[in-house]
């Protein structure tokens, strides 16, 4: 209960049930303009005098710059400037991110490569010209020569004693690490367990790939020393603080505006060195400069993701009960990871037990610099907490001869065990892994598939089924991520403007937050508009990332709406000469319960509040607006079970998805269609990751997959219909919601992997790494002697 509810007035009670607006699949407010081509994305923003940037980048993974001649480029008509490290790097003040903190170990905060290059794509010079065409002409005229050196590509070599350092200034190739904590009795548990399974799983490098690449338009006002920056970001306020520190100016002199953003998936939370260079170039030139990354840059030089290896041991007793998990995670974070090391290991370690009652857990980790593109957070950056346990559970099942569904049932946490404390210290209060496991198994008709599979095997066809059961943290709330603010203003007409610190990149925030506000205000959804994505207007917030919008923005919207509703009732009570407790609100009208005709509209309340303040009693301030801030619990656990079926063609190595079922529990769904849309998007990113997408380097660190012809995204032709089941349990917040943005991407890889492994297991094929493209499947068959 919040203080607001205690101040009297009927507050709607919605726990566990749909409301007038909450729980309804309302068509999105965002859609008509986006469907009609009236969206406004970063490349659609045009200002007078705008120039265009393009970059000279290293095509060598590691080496010394022996020649950098910009004369010819500078001489090209239409080219306004060519800047290198010499001009830009001295302008950089500080380059730390509030989400990671100032004290973390960062890659050097150099804007452009200075003296040497450290990955293919490393920005060396920025060319600014009258058009993008001319800027690219200028890039072609810059003469860059690099004396190649042997790059650091392998995480084991990078960790070895005396290894070449990716960043000599940092003094280590391990920017962050977690040592294994002493767990009493663990060794004995592994020595005496009936079965111990030890495996190492590799998740290859695959990428966020938003359909809109990164981009920004920087304007510097030399008369006020202010930066006005339009940028495609998920976190306007984090970006604002960063550029204030980078430029050494107060935050109040930086304005960040986000237009419509064409997807982010983690890649657009932070901003990269080429973006810093664009801002600095605008400052030096005193003219607006736009940089729109091209697709090759996005794939090759902006950010990497995944590229994890985890070794795991599982101790099991004679009944198939898990006794202990032990894991070591090694993360390849590249050369310039986003925001310090970009390691997700702390979460992986804490959440490793996932949905299971495992009494003992030990975890260790190293994040490792290499001469490759730096890592960005990507939808569920901590997904190894689910991927590896779920994949090894199937190995355990095969080893001890128990069906994987049955093995999960023997170990899954039951609702009757809640609250449940994990050996890592976290406590689950509202999760339903057993219920989602049962629902998903029922939806896919698990037993019937096993029969179909057996019959298919008789005919030489290889069908498989894979389960992935997942409990994962949404709305991670510590440090700068802990809170969100909201401002809600009743306009003089009686409509509302809800102002949030979000920067929606497709998450439907405009629609869902209007649903929450209309529900708690008691008005039509069309009476509420949402303002977001402009730091000059919106309260400080961490933005739209980490499955936090429903929990953080949803709850702060509820809170601020109740405060405004309270004020509306007080004014209405005065106007109607009635006690607040006798009032009710419906469809934007306040009426006295049981007194027909005794009512005022929100419009009349607003008129009184703003134009008729003389009529208000002295203890009632004029106007109706509220500012508030919500603080979330440290983690809001959300759970799902994915089950899919596949057929593997052992002749071609092709995997075909047959069915895909998701049972999820995100608490009260604000908008079921939006929930299913989030799940589906994540699922298909996982399907793509396992079966199609793979970012590949050759032996000298040269990328081989720099276009969509080589880096394969799934299309309509590869993806089956996804079938959904929903479980709605409670949550430890007043709105009863849990974040659902990442879960689809977290759970799907192991489901697909396990299905393929299940199909091929009777042939003696053992799979331990992804991707599972035709080549890898044929290689695995060959390794099994087939």
């Amino acid at each position: 209960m919040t203080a607001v509810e205690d101040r009297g007035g009927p507050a709607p009670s919605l726990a566990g049930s749909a409301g007038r607006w909450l729980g309804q699949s309302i068509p999105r407010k965002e859609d008509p303009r986006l469907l009609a081509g009236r969206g406004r994305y970063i490349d659609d923003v045009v200002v007078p005098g705008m120039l265009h940037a393009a970059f000279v980048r290293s095509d060598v993974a590691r080496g010394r710059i022996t020649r950098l001649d910009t004369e010819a480029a500078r001489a090209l008509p239409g080219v306004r400037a060519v800047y290198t490290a010499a001009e830009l790097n001295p302008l950089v003040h500080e380059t730390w991110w509030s989400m990671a903190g100032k004290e973390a170990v960062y890659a050097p905060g150099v804007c452009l490569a200075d003296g040497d290059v450290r990955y293919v794509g490393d920005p060396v010079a920025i060319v600014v010209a009258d058009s993008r065409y001319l800027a690219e002409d200028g890039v072609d005229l810059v003469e860059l020569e690099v004396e190649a050196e042997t790059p650091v590509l392998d995480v084991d070599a990078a960790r070895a004693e005396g290894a070449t350092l990716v960043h000599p200034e940092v003094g280590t190739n391990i920017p962050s690490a977690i040592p294994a904590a002493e767990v009493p009795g663990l060794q004995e548990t592994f020595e005496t367990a009936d079965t111990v399974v030890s495996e190492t799983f590799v998740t290859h490098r695959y990428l966020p790939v938003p359909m809109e690449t990164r981009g920004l338009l920087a304007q510097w006002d030399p008369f006020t020393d202010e930066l006005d920056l339009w940028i495609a970001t998920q976190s306007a306020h984090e970006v604002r603080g960063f550029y204030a520190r980078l430029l050494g100016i107060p935050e109040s002199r930086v304005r960040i505006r986000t237009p419509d953003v064409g997807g982010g998936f983690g890649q657009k939370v932070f901003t990269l060195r080429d973006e810093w260079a664009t801002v600095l170039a605008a400052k030096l030139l005193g003219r607006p400069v736009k940089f729109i990354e091209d697709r090759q840059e996005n794939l090759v030089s902006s950010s990497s993701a995944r590229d994890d290896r985890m070794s795991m041991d599982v101790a099991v007793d004679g009944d198939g009960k898990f006794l202990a998990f032990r894991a070591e995670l090694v993360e390849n974070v590249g050369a310039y990871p986003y925001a310090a090391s970009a390691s997700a290991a702390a979460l992986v370690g804490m959440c490793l037990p996932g949905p299971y009652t495992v009494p003992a857990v030990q975890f260790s980790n190293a994040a490792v610099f290499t001469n490759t593109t730096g890592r960005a957070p990507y939808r569920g950056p901590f997904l190894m907490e689910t991927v590896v346990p779920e994949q090894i559970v199937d190995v355990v099942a095969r080893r001890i001869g128990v069906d994987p569904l049955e093995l999960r049932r023997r170990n899954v946490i039951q609702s009757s065990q809640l609250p449940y404390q994990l050996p890592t210290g976290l406590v689950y209060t509202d999760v339903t892994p057993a219920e989602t496991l049962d629902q998903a198994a029922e939806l896919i008709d698990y037993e019937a598939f096993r029969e179909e599979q057996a019959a298919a095997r008789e005919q030489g066809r290889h069908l498989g089924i894979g389960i992935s059961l997942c409990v994962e943290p949404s709305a991670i709330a510590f440090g700068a991520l802990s809170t969100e603010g909201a401002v809600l203003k009743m306009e003089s007409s009686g409509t509302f403007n809800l102002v949030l610190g979000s920067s929606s990149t497709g998450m439907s925030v405009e629609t869902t937050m209007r649903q929450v506000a209309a529900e708690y205000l008691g008005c039509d959804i069309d009476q509420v508009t949402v303002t977001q994505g402009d730091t000059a207007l919106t309260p400080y917030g961490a933005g739209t990332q980490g499955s936090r919008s429903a929990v953080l923005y949803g709850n702060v919207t509820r809170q601020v709406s109740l405060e405004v509703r309270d004020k509306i009732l007080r004014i209405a009570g005065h106007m109607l000469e009635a006690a607040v407790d006798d009032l009710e609100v419906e469809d934007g009208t306040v009426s006295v319960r049981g007194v027909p005709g005794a009512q005022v509209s929100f419009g009349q309340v607003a008129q009184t509040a703003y134009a008729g303040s003389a009529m208000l009693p002295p203890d009632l301030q004029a106007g109706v607006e509220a500012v508030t801030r919500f603080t979330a619990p440290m983690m809001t656990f959300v759970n799902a079970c994915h089950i899919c079926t596949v057929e593997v063609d052992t002749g071609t190595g092709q995997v075909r998805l047959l069915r895909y079922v998701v049972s999820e529990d995100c608490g009260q769904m604000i908008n079921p269609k939006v929930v299913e849309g989030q799940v589906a998007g994540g699922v298909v990113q996982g399907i793509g990751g396992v079966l199609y997408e793979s970012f590949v380097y050759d032996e000298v660190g040269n990328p081989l997959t720099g276009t969509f012809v080589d880096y394969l995204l799934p299309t309509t032709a590869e993806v089956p219909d996804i079938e959904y089941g929903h479980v709605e349990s409670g949550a430890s917040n007043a709105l009863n919601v849990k974040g659902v943005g990442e879960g689809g991407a977290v759970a799907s890889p192991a489901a697909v992997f396990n299905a393929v492994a299940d199909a091929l297991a009777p042939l003696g094929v053992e799979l331990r790494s992804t991707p599972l493209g035709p080549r890898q499947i044929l290689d695995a068959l060959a390794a099994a002697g087939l």
Partner: protein
Amino acid sequence: MTVSVTVNGEQRSAVVEPRKTLADFLRQDCALTGTHLGCEHGVCGACTVLLDGQATRSCLVFAVQATGHEVTTVEGLTGPEGTLTPVQEAFRAEHGLQCGFCTPGFVVSATALLAENPEPTDDEIRDGLSGNLCRCTGYQGIVNAVRRACGRQGGVVAFDTEPVTA
């Protein structure tokens, strides 16, 4: 060089470099920014427009090649008062878009697909849209939108399970 193209029924002319793409001509010279550039190498389909009625990637066509031809962009599909077409309405009803960046390309491709084949099978829908990439929706809402636009409702498999309250 001078290009002269009929864009959304209106004659548009400009002096452009021969290397300027049709996509850039539409976005920069005609201020029609609904046509988006997602890859500029002809794979993602975000820049799809109708060129003489045929779905075409405008990043792979030079503006000068379009001289004398008719181009319809996503802006040209909607009615004068902003009325959405049945295809656009179906995308909205089926949550066929999230960030909206790929959406104009999908809307144009789906419109061309249904003009050619008003009653496509599921395989024909999936095949017909496989030249457009979306990263947000997992294609679920998109395929359902095309099913809806040709008179079939929603997914082929519908469980309609009521949420279980745990």
